[in-house]
């Protein structure tokens, strides 16, 4: 295809603003999918994506459009994950496009995530077409929303396209706008091949399937290719496009988007962001912007049933086939047994991985409280990376601890400004800019510790603004903070699974809460069991599980010794599932419950 008739674009939208419906409509209108094969959210293939209405993996689909000028155009819609956790993937997907549709619900207005992604698109040099969706809704206020979009993007309200993805109203105008306003790709068809890998997934039969955007040259089946970042040489065994079903074409020219199969099974060999070139005629420079995935949030995952450890390992290995950002290493906890320390891109990523492990692999898991990556500066001068609270050295040997701060952007209705400011301040946020998107909606910028966001900030923000505020953040810097590790001790023995690094001011609240919950969850023993929260050797909270005083049954009537013995043996069997913390017997359920409560 002539590059002048190719349009590559993504659709940026907040959850529920109608992105998938719009994509469905575009496929249907161009006859890409016969009507009988249509189903909702066609591009979201994972069950979890359909259920939650979110996109986790990027996707790309080719549609052919015959414009009013009589020319046939090739559109490649690149569906990107919308969530902040996947911003690296988003940035790679945007890199594969020349334009973007910024889709906003006419009844809701711009949300923080949309805005962040719109900024990302503008920074990547993309032409952005503002689109107001759901104009047929009763609560729609398309003019106000169009005003917000103009405030953000500049231009005039005439530039804003009004559609209803559901009814199809305005869709034809949108097609024409795409043809007119979005630029054609700018690659050099005759230069050596350079293609960007913007996503990849694992297919049981085909191995790793990479989604690529050819920038320069052409990618042809049978070529010996090279991945410039990994240095790996491979064979391009199959090349084609997706509609969204795979369609083998044998070749992708400059400006085109499609898939590449090499027969490779290890997803690490074909990483998102890498550049594909010809092994025999390599490009001199890769495309810009490759980065290693960097986990931001860490949590210990332990099978409730210790026998499931191997199954958990296999499940993680399988998930990783499709998700090279998932990092994990074995971890042993005295309280929870064998498990893994897992690094995630963010909270949503963590939630998704946990849910997939439980649902798709039928595992019952206990997760320790999520933590961020700290840097401990030791008195002797070196620095230690701390991904798990247990890794934090003794307070005495630590000179200072640094924690990751993020740039947070919150968009909220103006009436909640005070509430939001108060909340952010209580979470150690430092206020930056504040912009009015319209008279009713405000954009607030903060610098705040990631740990606070990971803890409970998002839920609190949502509940205090009745769900109207939205949040986005990006890594900013490391800063020294007054942090301490709170340990929980049972009968003077520290329980590793409960250790948490918190700001000094929150240590007492955390310690008291945890001690109190545990007192209710731990069964009475033969002796008093003190439960303490401590910072180093200093006890900050204490409660006691009083010794059990009665454990006996009344007489066995009629000399029924057998029944009595069997009852006691059964009770003893039940006790075998107890974990021993020192001399204290703790049912696994108590750990699980305590960690669950800590999450709430």
């Amino acid at each position, binding site marked *: 295809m002539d590059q002048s008739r190719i349009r590559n674009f993504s659709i940026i939208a907040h959850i529920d603003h109608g992105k998938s419906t719009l994509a469905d409509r575009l496929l249907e209108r161009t006859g890409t999918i016969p009507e009988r094969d249509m189903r909702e959210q066609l591009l979201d293939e994972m069950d979890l994506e359909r259920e939650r209405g979110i996109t986790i993996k990027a996707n790309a689909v080719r549609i052919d459009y015959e414009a009013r000028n009589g020319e046939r155009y090739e559109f490649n819609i690149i569906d990107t994950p919308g969530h902040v956790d996947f911003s690296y993937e988003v940035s790679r997907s945007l890199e594969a496009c020349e334009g973007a549709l910024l889709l906003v619900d006419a009844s809701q207005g711009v949300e923080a995530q949309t805005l962040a992604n719109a900024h990302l698109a503008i920074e990547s040099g993309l032409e952005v077409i503002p689109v107001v969706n759901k104009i047929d809704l009763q609560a729609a206020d398309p003019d106000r929303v169009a005003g917000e979009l103009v405030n953000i993007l500049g231009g005039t309200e005439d530039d804003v396209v009004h559609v209803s993805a559901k009814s199809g109203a305005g869709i034809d105008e949108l097609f024409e706008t795409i043809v007119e306003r979005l630029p054609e790709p700018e690659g050099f068809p005759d230069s050596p091949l350079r293609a960007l890998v913007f996503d990849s997934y694992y297919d049981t039969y085909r191995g790793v399937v990479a989604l690529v955007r050819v920038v320069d040259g052409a990618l042809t089946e049978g070529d010996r290719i090279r991945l410039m970042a990994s240095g790996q040489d491979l064979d391009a065994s199959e090349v084609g496009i997706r509609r969204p079903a795979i369609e083998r074409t044998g070749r992708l020219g400059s400006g085109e988007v499609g898939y590449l199969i090499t027969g490779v099974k290890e997803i690490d060999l074909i990483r998102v962001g890498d550049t594909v070139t010809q092994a025999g005629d390599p490009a001199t420079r890769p495309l810009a912007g490759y980065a290693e995935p960097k986990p931001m949030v860490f949590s210990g995952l332990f099978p409730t049933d210790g026998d499931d450890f191997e199954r958990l390992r296999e499940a993680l290995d399988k998930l990783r086939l499709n998700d090279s950002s998932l990092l994990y290493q074995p971890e042993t906890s005295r309280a929870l047994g064998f498990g893994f320390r897992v690094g995630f891109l963010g909270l949503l990523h963590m939630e998704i991985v946990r849910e997939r492990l439980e649902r798709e692999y039928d595992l019952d898991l206990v997760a320790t409280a999520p933590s961020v990556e700290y840097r401990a500066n030791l008195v002797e001068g070196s620095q230690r990376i701390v991904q798990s609270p247990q890794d934090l050295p003794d307070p005495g040997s630590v000179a200072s601890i640094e924690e990751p701060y993020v740039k947070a952007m919150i968009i909220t209705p103006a009436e909640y400004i005070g509430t939001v400011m108060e909340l952010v301040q209580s979470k150690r946020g430092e206020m930056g800019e504040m912009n009015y998107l319209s008279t009713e909606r405000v954009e607030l910028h903060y610098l705040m510790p990631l740990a606070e966001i990971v803890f409970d900030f998002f839920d609190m923000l949502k509940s205090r603004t009745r769900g109207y505020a939205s949040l986005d953040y990006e890594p900013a810097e490391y800063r020294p903070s007054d942090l301490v590790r709170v340990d929980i001790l049972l009968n003077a023995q520290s329980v590793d699974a409960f250790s948490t690094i918190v700001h000094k001011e929150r240590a007492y609240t955390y310690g008291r809460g945890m001690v109190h919950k545990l007192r209710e969850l731990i069964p009475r023993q033969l002796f008093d069991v003190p439960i303490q929260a401590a910072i180093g050797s200093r006890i900050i909270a204490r409660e006691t599980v009083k010794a059990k005083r009665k454990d*006996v049954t009344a007489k066995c009537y009629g000399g029924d010794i057998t029944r009595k013995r069997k009852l006691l043996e059964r009770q*003893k069997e039940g006790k075998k599932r107890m974990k021993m913390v020192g001399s204290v017997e703790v049912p696994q359920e108590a750990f699980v419950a305590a960690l669950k409560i800590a999450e709430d």
Partner: protein
Amino acid sequence: MSEYRSDSAALADLAATWKSAYVHVPFCRRRCPYCDFAIVDESNDGSLDHETYVDALVTEVGMESDFGPLDAVNFGGGTPSRLDPKQLRRVIDALTSRFGLKSDVEMSLEVNPEDWTDEFGRGLSEAGFTRVSVGAQSFDSGVLEALGRLHTVEMIDATVQGLRACGIRSVGIDLIFGHPSETGRSWTRTVEQAMEIGVDHISTYSLTVETGTKLSRDIAAGAPAPDDDVQADRYQQFEEISQSHGFVRYEISNHAKPGQVCRYNLATWSHGEYVAFGIAAHDHRWGVRYRNHQRVERYLEAVATGDRPRLGVEYLSEQEQERDRLMLGLRLAAGTPLTPTARRFAASDAGMAMVEAGILEIGAGRMRVVVPMMTDAVIREALSVSAADC
């Protein structure tokens, strides 16, 4: 026997050689709300003639192989005092002719105060009963009502006095503690009153919520439940008062004045042998434990066709008998001899933790639970250590 203290080790060891018989009398005027025993609730089902049941008992006794002579006979229930003395006498005669009785045999039964008449007492005396346990349960009329009992405090007094007048050698009462309607003071008064009326033996049972009972349904519906700590307190209160009146605890629930130990009780906990008759009765001899049909119809049917009315059987190896002896002996104040299994338990982590917690004591060749209310915690661990042998 009177030369022994009630909690003496020598007595407990001697009791292990005694031979006893148990007879289950299932009839009750009405089921108590906390009871899950195998009984016939005559307020619901009065169709079973007592005489028919006694006939079956007599027949069943005749089927038993040689055993005895008997050191102790006990009629339990249900409510044995629902039978008249003549009927009880028929069963005693059957036992006597089948097994023979020792000259100093203990012949005991449970009597409910609402069944007491002087005539009934004379009948017991004539039938040869030497020991009676009165189902008093409490001297607090509020608690008696809450327990669903049919008698009054006055009836308890009349029964105890009447038994004395009839010359019954050993008179005991049963008490239940820890019902939510009981207070610390009302329990103290109950115990003091039990001391005042002058009994020789007291059995104290903590109220236990058994599944399927009215009590457990009431609690599920929101009624207050018995509290373990309160029951532990009440147990301690009882120990203090009863000891100052000369009672000695010889088993978790059983306390006797000198020479007044219930032989049948002690023999059971000392791992002695016993034959047993009637529904849901369990016997234990030669390392075999049999249990009888629970349902009256099945029981009567089996006996009528000349079969033993067995529902099940458990054959115990030497090691399993050893384990049972350890388990039972831990309930005794005298404790259990330090057999190889007991020694292994003593040396185990769990055993040492028990000693450290002050619950278990080892010395003079024996092992004793010194906090009786924690006995099951000890037995559970002992069983898991001894399970390796079985």
